[in-house]
């Protein structure tokens, strides 16, 4: 990729983007709806990384971003961490594992808490990604903890989903049960120097061979990566490039746009619905269901 100044932020732009992300992460559904529409900019290449906690996502993202930046690619990273269910506070610990990359001028890195969101994303994540795109990064990376719904949200928001799994855990079985494998464009078995990694790769590869992706003509690669030794990183980059080419050939911009717009609408409606439901008191639930249904629908209409 040619070296350019696109996505290389000066102090002012960095500060502005950081504040804009905070504002969006806190914005209510109504305020988003009332805000002026986000201006369209040429979309960045978007890559999502997801997988269970402790699998090494941040370390891998950090290493990959470091490599991309060294090649002259500007990258914006959004890492979403779960909040404590007790205090709603959070330790946003991803950043430290991306340390090598996060001092590079071509990199912008931000952690946000998933707060109370249902799908493991943060509020208005679609808008946040657009706000980042407005700064013309070559690539955007979205990192999320895999908690059921998150994978499907990631699928809607990015071009390529990389799913990470660790050998010698129940990850693979869990993933099969939850149907998570279906959303993956690339599967990475992390800590591939661990015992059990080759076997896990084999199992995964034979499973995805018959998966949904196959139907659309993309064969999901199952790669082993060890961040410590750097083994497998070249293969991962090659797979990302191959998938980008596949996306360019097989998905139209309009399709992508539609999918993201769909996620945004769904997200806003679900949050409004949540607000309406939590406004109901125990006494309300003694009313007939049909009446409650009407009340919630009316509530949704009042924007």
């Amino acid at each position, binding site marked *: 990729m040619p070296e350019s100044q696109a996505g290389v932020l000066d102090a002012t732009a960095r500060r502005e983007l950081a504040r804009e992300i905070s504002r969006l992460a806190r914005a209510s559904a109504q305020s988003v709806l009332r805000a002026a529409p986000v201006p369209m900019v040429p979309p960045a290449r978007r890559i999502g990384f997801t997988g269970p906690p*402790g699998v090494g996502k941040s*370390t891998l993202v950090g290493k990959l971003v470091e490599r991309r930046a060294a090649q002259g690619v500007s990258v914006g990273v959004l890492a979403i961490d779960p909040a404590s269910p007790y205090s709603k506070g959070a*330790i946003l*610990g991803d950043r*430290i*594992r991306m*340390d090598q990359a996060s001092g590079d001028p071509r990199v912008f890195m931000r952690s946000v808490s998933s707060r109370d969101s249902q799908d493991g994303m943060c509020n208005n994540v679609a808008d946040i990604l657009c706000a980042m795109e407005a700064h013309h990064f070559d690539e955007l990376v979205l990192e999320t903890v895999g908690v059921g719904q998150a994978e499907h949200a990631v699928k809607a928001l990015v071009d390529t989903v990389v799913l990470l799994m660790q050998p010698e855990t129940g990850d693979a079985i869990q993933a099969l049960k939850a149907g998570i494998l279906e959303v993956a464009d690339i599967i990475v078995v992390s800590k591939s120097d661990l015992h059990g990694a080759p076997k896990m790769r084999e199992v995964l590869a034979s499973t995805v061979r018959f998966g949904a992706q196959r139907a659309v003509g993309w064969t999901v690669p199952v790669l082993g990566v060890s961040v*410590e030794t750097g083994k497998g990183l070249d293969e991962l980059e090659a797979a990302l490039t191959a998938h980008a080419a596949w996306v360019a050939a097989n998905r139209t911009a309009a399709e992508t746009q539609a999918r993201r717009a769909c996620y945004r609408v769904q997200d806003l409606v679900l949050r409004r619905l949540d607000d309406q439901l939590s406004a109901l008191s125990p006494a309300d639930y003694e009313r007939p269901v049909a009446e409650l249904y009407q009340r919630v629908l009316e509530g949704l209409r009042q924007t």
Partner: protein
Amino acid sequence: MNKPHTELAEPNQPSLKTPSGIEAPEVATADMVHPEGIGAPGEYPFTRGIFDNGYRGRLWTFRQYSGFGSAEETNERYKFLINQGQTGLSVALDLPTQCGYDPTDPMASSEVGKVGVPIATLADAEILFDGLDLAKLSTSFTINGTAAIIYAMYLAVADKRGIPRAKLTGTIQNDILKEYVARGTWIFPVRPSMRLIADSVMYSNEQTPRFNPISIAGAHVRDAGCTAVEEMAYTLANAFAYVDELVRRGGDPNAFAKRLSFFFYVHMDFFEEICKFRAARRYWAKQLKARYGVTDDKALMFRFGVVCGGSSLTAEQPYNNIVRVGIENMAAVFGGAQSIFTCAFDEAFQIPTETSAEIALRTQQIVAYESGISRTVDPLGGSYYVEWLTDRMEEEMEKVMAEIDEYGGTVQAIEDGYLQMRIARRALERKLDTDKGDRVVVGVNHFRHEEERNELGEVFRMNPEAVKTVVERYHHVKATRDNAAVERTLAALAAAAATDDVNLMPLLVDCCHAYATVGEMVDTLKREWGEFEEPVRL
């Protein structure tokens, strides 16, 4: 700022549980004691100490920690301490030296000479030990990430002065595992670091047979907030990891185990502290025998040094610390320590002054020569309570070690940040207990005056000229040394580091003789091995 908190009521009564959570009996009775008996001092499994004559043959070493500013200033302080009757040197190194940065490195800025003396090249080491008889003095270095390099420096100084290596005595801490967990002066990833340790231990066994090439330390995890049980368990788990590595590299445990030593903190719970040493000493001997087939009695002996003070000292009412250190000093003696360091009462908030350092040393002399507690070997042996608590401590240590084993061993637990997380959580627990007043700290959460302030007479201040001296010498060495020799020795080091089976120690000694800097040696190894990536889990 620094608002004192409101006065707490007087505590109702002292806690009935030990700080490690062991429920203490109201009265200990004969039936609570180990039925197999406790053995004799100097006999396996050494519950009662490693020497049959206790401290009659030899008193413990009084070892005071010092080092600051430049090599010149520290050398002067050493000479002062030796004149005061100190029998061993303890070298504190500054953070750039400990983390492998030269004094001119941007990472080192503002830290040169701050918490210890800088050693950047052999020139600093030569000045540091100038006029000191290295064949007679035992020298202990608190150094870990760059331990092999500083040990090489010490050998190079001895070589240049014509002192036979075999005469050198002393200790390098050289315990990297606890650096990842609690002290933070790691440099390389865990596995190559283990190799560097194995190399230095094996080389030392051969070249400096009277030198302790590793001192496996629980002190820092303890100071970070662990219980006494965890302190011993984590340390023993690390020790077994080193033994495994040495055995894997062909070391004979009957030989190298003779030179393994340990290092702990003594905090305030008197009997728990005494019993943790008795328990660990016994457990170590039993495990070396069972797991590694060690048969030589000398190799089964658990030898340890201690620090009295650490985080048990308070900045509030600092003179209370003199009493604390006195009690801890006695616990260390009852526990059978080989070497004792007593903190100065002002150590909680500053570099000790000459007066406070002297009181610390005097405390040891009073315990040693006035109290009479070292007259009879293991005078508490056979006490129902002490023997019962020793057994309980051993059981609890085994439980904690089993948890680490279950996780996948100590190296895995460290690489994943699991052990670090356990310690941070325990530290928070301990802090909250102190805040609530459940854990009594006199002068801090109970028995304090309103608006208390520290009334301290002397505050030691760094000499700003010292840093200048260090940097000037560094530039001078680089300008006048034989650069071809430096490049040659560093290249040999790099080549050996790329393999797994060449001992790096002789190559490091060559680098030191060529006046290569600590930063150059570390950077050479970093290029081969990379750097540790800190896992953070909270």
